[in-house]
């Protein structure tokens, strides 16, 4: 069983996380696709902190008896890795897009400059 104080502190932290995420969505600083991910994360953390026997129960499903919080670390690290991988793909796509934008802008500027010169000359 999770000690009561730990449980209360974790619950408060989870609620704070949910509030921050909600505020970010409300002020449009977080897109919906990420909002859902972080809301879900906050909800899972909240459930785990309120359900005091939960960690032991879940660790039991996986046969972890020595140190139940290990399941939390394992799942947490895997989750963070996946999120980081996802961010790498997002960054790659954004830099590809900014390359294309830079190229289009430069080509348009060149074309524009040429036409302007023609008008002045003629």
């Amino acid at each position: 069983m999770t000690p009561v104080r730990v449980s209360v502190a974790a619950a408060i932290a989870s609620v704070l996380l949910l509030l921050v995420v909600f505020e970010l969505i409300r002020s449009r600083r977080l897109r919906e696709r990420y909002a859902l991910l972080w809301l879900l994360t906050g909800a899972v953390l909240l459930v785990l902190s309120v359900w005091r026997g939960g960690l032991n129960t879940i660790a039991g499903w996986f046969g972890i008896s020595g140190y139940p919080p290990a399941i939390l670390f394992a799942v947490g690290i895997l989750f963070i890795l996946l999120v980081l991988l996802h961010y790498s793909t997002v960054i790659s796509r954004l830099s590809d897009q900014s390359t294309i934008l830079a190229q289009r802008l430069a080509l348009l500027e060149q074309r524009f400059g040429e036409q302007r010169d023609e008008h002045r000359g003629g």
Partner: protein
Amino acid sequence: MSRRVAIVPAYNEEESIGRVVDELRAFDEGLEVLVVDDGSTDGTAEIARARGARVVSLPFNLGIGGAVQTGFRYAWEHDFDVAVRVDGDGQHAPAELDAVLAPVLSGEADVVVGSRFIGGDGYRSSRSRRVGIRLLALSVSALTRQRITDPTSGFQAANRKGIRLFAADYPHDYPEAEAAVMVAKHALRLCEVPVAMRARETGQSSITAVRSVYYMVKVVLAIFVALFRRKVVPLQ
């Protein structure tokens, strides 16, 4: 008469760009010279324009791949028949242009690469770099199923098909080897011709000793991945 453009990628090359543009224009009056200023902070763009080149200025530095691709996009949009890449640091001698353009103009090849290692010996570099280039050459030769001797040469010419491919997709950081694999993958005809290259007139090669290992790993990875990519454009 086919319309030809020389694509000159340049990043802070104010010391050499004027001479490169002059030599290209002197070489052939029908050749349009396009300098792709890759976010230079010096006078590269102004000097090139003053010497009669067309200049496309990128708003920030994209690296060699992004700059060269910009040139091929220009060539594609302005309906050029042939485009040749000539580096702005002066190492590609305009005197060799005829050799590099010939197979494209005669219709023998879609993409031509000027090689320092066929016959001629116009280029000396460190032993480790030559070994690296040799290893890369073996990998690229195996993947393209033809003999490639100089997979790091940026002295490239392309016809309309090659221009279309490179306008749609040109590899990023160290693009030449991957470009060769891409060309073969799209069933375009690739050929190498012997050229002599000059030592850089100014500045440093972008590849230092420490970086060269990273370079090798990255390029080998890139060319193997390139094999498994989908084709970017339907060329036939």
